[in-house]
């Protein structure tokens, strides 16, 4: 049984925040494939194209037939724990600070034996459900979980290290005017967030949804404009040291291709979508990345909503797609920079959303509530790449298969 987490005590400002250390980060090139799968909650292992043998640990040649053709394929997620240990001594500073640590040998239904992190509710002899998850170093690791959910299982100390669950955490949502913002705030509170700050640009400008955020317990509207470095510096000075999760919802969408585009609007899209993310990273990144070992409500995740067309443009939204591609690139650099401190950078890709700027596009579209759910699920599952809705998932699948074909297919769309 997992002991449910208690709300953390108020921090003593006189005490030094625990120094963030990372679990071992060195991996072979093949070993990095586990992180690629873990980032999006896939359970892909190398599977020999010639003889079908599933390989683990990752290899450069098949251990059964020596084939070097080892594509990563979705694999049976079940297994059995055949041995377990509780580690009480480790020379590694990250694990030393977290002892005792449980690990086990799991016989995968697919064949190989994997050394895994063991959830507290499983032990030798148990049938388990396996996941590939990202550890604090951003590397993919094998995790053995109870076959069916157990009470408070997400509060297990190992799970808390591997996920960005909102429970007891303080979250900044950057743009209250985003269509998904009300549902997102609600979903975060439902997941146990201790407090949600919601950013509001140009507060003098009246807008209809404002009342929905006013006077709510554990919700505060704060002045925040991603195009204004000063506003970000001021806000980061106030709450940057206690922001555990940041979700960037600020987005500037305008339809139209490139030839006939208004470059002023295109510049606005870049300002909000790409440079805005960069400014947020500059203002909040250092503080968050320095607080990733700070107890139950350590800083855990910096997330941003992106269009799935960051991967390949929809010519009907040329300038917007360009800003999304730029934003994705900024996010990838932030991911590399945050990784040194153990902070996760999560990209939530969505298809066209149910709003004015996507009027006229055919369904399916992503409802604000669905997008909000997708964001919170990504945090709870500890993901780096989340594709919300059928359009985004379909686009990602086609992009993985062949980006060249995807580009041509999108170019032919009416």
């Amino acid at each position, binding site marked *: 049984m997992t002991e449910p987490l208690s709300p953390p005590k108020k921090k003593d400002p006189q005490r030094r925040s625990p120094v963030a250390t990372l*679990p071992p980060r060195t991996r072979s090139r*093949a*070993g990095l494939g*586990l992180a690629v799968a873990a980032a999006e909650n896939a359970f892909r292992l190398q599977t020999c194209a010639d003889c079908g043998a599933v390989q683990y640990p990752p290899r450069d040649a098949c251990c059964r037939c020596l084939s070097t053709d080892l594509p990563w394929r979705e694999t049976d997620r079940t297994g059995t724990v055949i041995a377990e*240990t509780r*580690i009480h001594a480790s020379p*590694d500073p990250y*694990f030393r600070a977290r002892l005792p640590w449980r690990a086990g040998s799991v016989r995968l239904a697919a064949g190989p*034996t994997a050394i895994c992190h063991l959830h507290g509710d499983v032990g030798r002899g148990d049938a388990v459900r396996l996941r590939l998850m990202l550890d604090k170093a951003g590397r993919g690791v094998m995790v053995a979980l109870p076959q069916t959910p157990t009470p408070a299982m997400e509060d297990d100390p190992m799970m808390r290290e591997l996920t960005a669950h909102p429970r007891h955490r303080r979250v900044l949502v950057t743009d209250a005017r985003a269509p998904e913002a009300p549902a997102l705030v609600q979903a975060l509170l439902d997941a146990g967030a201790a407090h949600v700050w919601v950013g509001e640009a140009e507060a003098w400008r009246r807008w209809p949804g404002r009342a929905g955020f006013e006077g709510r317990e554990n919700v505060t509207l704060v002045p925040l404009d991603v195009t204004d470095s000063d506003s970000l510096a001021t806000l980061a000075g106030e709450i940057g040291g206690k922001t555990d999760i940041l979700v960037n919802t600020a987005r500037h969408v305008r339809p139209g291709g490139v030839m006939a585009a208004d470059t002023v609007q295109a510049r606005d899209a870049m300002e909000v979508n790409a440079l805005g993310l960069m400014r947020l990273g500059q203002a909040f990144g250092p503080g968050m990345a320095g607080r990733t070992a700070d107890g139950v409500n350590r800083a855990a995740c910096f997330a941003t909503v992106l269009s799935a067309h960051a991967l390949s443009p929809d010519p009907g939204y040329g300038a917007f797609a360009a800003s999304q591609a730029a934003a994705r690139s900024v996010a990838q650099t932030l991911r590399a920079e945050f990784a040194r401190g153990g902070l996760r950078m999560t990209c939530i890709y969505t298809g066209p959303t149910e709003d004015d700027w996507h009027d006229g596009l055919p369904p399916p579209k992503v409802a604000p509530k669905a997008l909000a759910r997708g964001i919170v699920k990504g945090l709870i599952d500890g993901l780096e790449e989340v594709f919300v809705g059928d359009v985004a998932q379909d686009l990602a699948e086609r992009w993985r298969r062949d980006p060249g074909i995807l580009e041509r297919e999108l170019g032919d769309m009416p």
Partner: protein
Amino acid sequence: MIPRAYDGVAVVAPVTVPYVRYSQETAHWWIARALKAALDAAGLGPRDIDGLSVSSFSLAPDTPVGLTQHLGLTLNWLDTVPMGGMSGVAALRRAARAVQAGDAEIVACVAGDANHIDSFRRLLGNFSRFSQDAVYPYGYGGPNACFALLMDAYMADYGVERADFGRIAVAQRENALRNPHALMKSPLTLEQYLNARAISDPIALFDCVMPCAGAEAFLVMREDRAGGLPAARVLATMERHNAFPEDPIQLRGGWADQAAAFWDRAGVGPSDMDLLQTYDDYPVISMMQIEDLDFCEKGAAGAFVRARDLTVTGDFPHNTSGGQLSVGQAGAAGGYLGLVEALRQVTGQAGPTQVAGARRAAVSGFGMVNYDRGVCSGAAVLEGVA
């Protein structure tokens, strides 16, 4: 076909450079000390040898090639044996064949390692690719955690209890108290073993070896070159790598399907042995060797050690110098420790740990936890030349 015996080959001059917990000296220094001691024991100089076999984890950036120049050796035959706990047996069987075939006349086999503060942690970090990809990220318990998993499965499968493993550790400590060079100097009781600090369940403090610096060596030469030196013959050897890859967890080593042929080649059996030296990085591994080399049935080693006295004066002398558990683990020299002690025993040179009348010994080696199990297994039977 049964391979030809190692006729005409003599193994002489077993030497140990006393171990030190931490030392500022380098692997080159330790290896030179061991080589000099072995040559001194045989009345030889550096120019008299034409073959060298080296095992070390801490020579970098050098290899044994660099050692030839560093130590001023001119050779016809040079070997590197990077097999950790199997290094001694592997070096012996390669050197013996080289001498027998005439590729070399006198081969010095040496293993030695430095141990600076923090060098064990650094060695761990670069041990193997599978360890980096699939072991260290899971708690970084080092070999302790890997062997804890094997021990957990072994205990569950065979109903062996911690006290059974404790008997091995306690007997070895008793042996070590006779050995002035053992790092462990105080007696160990079964109670202390059972109540020791947990390291990685079910492994506790006295299941683990202490990393240290040290070196071991011996010489392999034609019998006619050995003159009047106390010498041992090699009756048989075996090696096996990555045995039983389909076993989901390691409960047996490469000895298991080789033992019958191995004893056949030796022309003697387990009951003819006066003593046994197993590779004891953990007591559970010693138990596997006792079973897989046919000293008892599979799964019966717990009962076997309960029914026997494993000390120097007992009915089943085992790891007579105290083994790595009580002497210390000097890197790759740990793979020589049992073999060098066995050579001393069968040639009557073991001094305070001498088993009375010892003439034949079995030695086994086990090395390199590349991922979830030890990959290299080997064994040898030695007989003193009367």
